[in-house]
């Protein structure tokens, strides 16, 4: 198999390095001596999958710390897929070159909704039945985890199991139970697995619908299936496993550098933000642990860059000390430090200067909305003054290219709010002209707002494609010199919105779209919206029901049974506060907001270092 690939197949495809494995720090375990054999399947290209830190965590954890085995596979690009189908080569794992069907568990990472067609395609390339109820004793368990599965329902019919929450907290236990009960038949094994906290077996539930299409009730079909699925949370991140020998790809990954996860979770409480709820509460690593991880990772990889990552890295309580320490330790060796996200304030810019003493590339800030009114409404606690101070600090210290992130199509948005985006860009450009000798480049990236489950805006309608296009035209009608606007594809946002708040009725649509040839839907060159529309029409899906309707507070939402720890009552209050334009502050430096997470999980915010908060 490997021989045929290397001699006959790979020389004919683009970027063959995607399919060869054998990277430094790859762990190839003895197949026969390993207990449970699992393959981690990332439903996108290798270079994207290799940039995903969650995969590296699970890979190291299972292979280094347990007697199980975890191999890897990624979506082949279309040229490779064509040859594989023609030559009858099944999708294989990069460590052993075994087909996926040989494994006990195939685990997909669902990082974004639109990767679902790639998952179906990968199962098909593995000769594994796509529908869970068509898989038998001879087939692997097909499971999924990741942020998207906090609403697993649109995908429920394709998976045997979903894992909800922090994967490293549950996967070892999950594989241990499989090993312990390996003599059981599939259904009985699934019953054992359903007893694990954070594990959801969709086949054990029946959904009854009202005549208007909303959910009437969810019935557990077996006693092992709990009514609610509570997400799993790593309570002590400082002691949690983190890979010190990450796999080092030969070809360039999208994020090709060492990574320190300084903390998990963000409690700024932006009302549109899915990650802000599902990754609560904030848990930090100590500087001591991070410095040790930095040293080990660099020694084991030789990376020339290290990124400090999290949902909001500048909110890490020891950020100043950590960054300065790392710069002092590594800059002489030509190793640079990068920050994955910046806060909109002058302190952030000063720190960014610290890490990029010489080369000033593009600086990115995210005000999210143009007017103060709308920023208050979405609880993006940034004032215009903070933004201008940040921009001023940036231009003063030599940056001359700035990227700003905005959302449009937000709840309650009116024409003045769009106008404010343009005003803000003009003011930013004006500040730039005062401090920069060269012409400044301002880029604004505009994402269409997609309401997500488990957020305060989960009841809100999503702007239609037509509305979004109209807003886009409005924003684009006047060109501003040296300011470039770019927009997310409103058609992609429409489909994302459909699935992020969808239910089990959508599985037929996904299947139909895949059958028609949809794949790599997040790649513009492969995105076939026409085929999606055909599938929607053939499956008679009323997309307005999912996207443009105001949902009532007493409706049973498809994802309500997933317990993130944040109460529905809190989300409702936040939604109402959005109407009033009332802001809710971050509970790390103000009073508890009563979101419910700490009480519910009997854990506490885990803040490790002296807190330095730039007001």
């Amino acid at each position, binding site marked *: 198999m490997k021989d045929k690939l*290397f*001699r*006959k197949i*790979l*020389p004919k495809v683009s970027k*063959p*390095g995607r399919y*060869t494995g*054998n*990277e*430094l720090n790859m762990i190839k375990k003895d197949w026969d001596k390993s207990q449970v054999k699992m393959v981690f399947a990332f439903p996108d290209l290798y270079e994207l999958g290799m940039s995903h830190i969650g995969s590296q965590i699970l890979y190291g954890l299972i292979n280094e710390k347990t007697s199980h085995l975890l191999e890897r596979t990624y979506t082949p690009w279309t040229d490779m897929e064509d040859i594989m189908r023609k030559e009858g080569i099944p999708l294989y794992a990069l460590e052993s070159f075994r087909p996926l069907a040989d494994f006990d568990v195939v685990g997909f990472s669902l990082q974004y909704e639109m990767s679902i067609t790639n998952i179906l395609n990968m199962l098909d390339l593995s000769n594994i039945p796509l529908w869970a109820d068509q898989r038998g004793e001879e087939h692997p368990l097909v499971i999924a985890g990741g942020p998207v599965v906090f609403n697993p329902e649109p995908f429920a019919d394709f998976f045997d199991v979903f894992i909800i929450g922090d994967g490293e907290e549950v996967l070892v236990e999950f594989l241990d139970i499989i090993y312990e009960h390996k003599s059981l038949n599939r259904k009985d094994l699934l019953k054992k697995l359903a007893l694990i906290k954070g594990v959801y077996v969709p086949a054990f539930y029946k959904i009854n619908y009202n005549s208007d299409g909303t959910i009437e009730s969810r019935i557990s079909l077996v006693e092992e299936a709990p009514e609610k699925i509570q997400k799993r949370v790593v309570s002590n991140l400082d002691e949690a496993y983190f890979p010190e020998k990450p796999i*080092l790809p*030969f*070809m*360039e990954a999208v994020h090709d550098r060492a990574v320190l996860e300084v903390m998990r979770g963000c409690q700024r409480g932006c009302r549109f933000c899915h990650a802000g709820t599902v990754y609560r509460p904030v848990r930090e690593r100590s500087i001591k642990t991070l410095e040790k991880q930095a040293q080990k990772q*660099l*020694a*084991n*990889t*030789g*990376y*020339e860059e290290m990124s400090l990552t999290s949902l909001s890295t500048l909110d890490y309580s020891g950020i100043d000390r950590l960054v300065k320490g790392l710069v002092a330790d590594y800059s002489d*060796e*030509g*190793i640079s430090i990068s920050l994955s996200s910046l806060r909109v304030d002058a302190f952030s810019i000063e720190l960014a200067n610290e890490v990029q003493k*010489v*080369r000033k590339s593009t600086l990115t800030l995210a005000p999210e909305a143009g007017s103060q009114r709308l920023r208050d409404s979405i609880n993006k606690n940034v004032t215009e003054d903070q933004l201008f101070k940040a921009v001023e600090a940036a231009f003063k210290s030599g940056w001359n290219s700035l990227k700003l992130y905005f959302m449009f199509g937000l709840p309650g948005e009116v024409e003045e709010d769009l106008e404010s985006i343009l005003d803000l860009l003009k003011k930013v450009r004006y500040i730039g002209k005062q401090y920069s000798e060269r012409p400044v480049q301002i880029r604004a990236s505009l994402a269409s707002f997609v309401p997500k489950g488990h957020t305060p805006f989960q009841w809100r309608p999503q702007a239609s494609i037509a509305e979004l296009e109209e807003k886009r035209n409005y924003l684009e009608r006047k060109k501003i010199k040296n300011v470039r606007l770019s927009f997310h594809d409103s058609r992609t946002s429409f489909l994302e919105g459909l699935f992020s708040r969808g239910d089990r009725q959508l599985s037929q649509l996904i299947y139909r779209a895949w059958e028609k040839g949809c794949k790599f839907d997040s790649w513009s060159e492969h995105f076939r919206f026409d085929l999606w529309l055909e599938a929607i029409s053939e499956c008679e899906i009323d997309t307005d029901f999912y996207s443009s309707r105001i949902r009532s507070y007493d409706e049973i939402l498809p994802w309500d049974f997933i317990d993130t720890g944040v109460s529905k009552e809190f989300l409702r209050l936040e939604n109402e506060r959005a109407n009033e334009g009332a802001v809710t502050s971050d509970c790390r430096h103000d009073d508890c907001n009563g979101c419910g997470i700490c009480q519910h999980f009997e854990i506490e915010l885990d803040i490790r270092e002296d807190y330095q908060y730039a007001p």
Partner: protein
Amino acid sequence: MHLRAEYYVGPDLRFLSNLDMKRMMARSLRRASIPYALSAGYNPHMKLSIGTVLPVGIWGKREYLDIELREEVEPLVFMHKLNEVLPAGVKINKCQVINSNTKALMRVINAASYAFCFNKGYDLNIIKENIENSESLVVESRGKKKGIDKDLKPGIFKIGVKINSEISSLNILVAAGEPINIRYDELIDLLKVHGVGDNDIIDMFREANYVRVENYFYTPLEKVN
């Protein structure tokens, strides 16, 4: 100080691009804690240069790199330290100190030897004779002047035949760089013209790189000044 090293890139790494190879070497040097020198300027980088590009799809027995160090390191120590951390399939064969004014690898390497391996079934001596006896060896150019007819004859110096019980090979010594550059895929096209079937070349690699001076072929380690 400056070092020149000769290294081996095994079959499993044949799909690395030149940039991949350079990145892999740079990261290995960091892992080995070799005191590499950094360039000045906005974006400091290692002063590492790699000889002629090893094409994607073939592996190499004797490839070359030059590196500048900020401290003295014994060549043997350099080789051992690096070999300890290199990924499986890459190995430093030899290494020696060179003068700082030694001409760059890219500028001196002007010949290379490619090996094409076959299963039984071909009389390689006949292919060799046919090629040697041809007045001209025209194939379609694969390089920058894609599609234009190119005569390989002036760029082919020597053809060797190795016959083993299982696998036999043709080893073709050709010109590289300026004034004429013979690509391995043009050689495949040439072999096809001489009757070799599409799937019958079961392996290929670059055996060596040379500095040719008139009719003498030196290795880049022999010709350092």
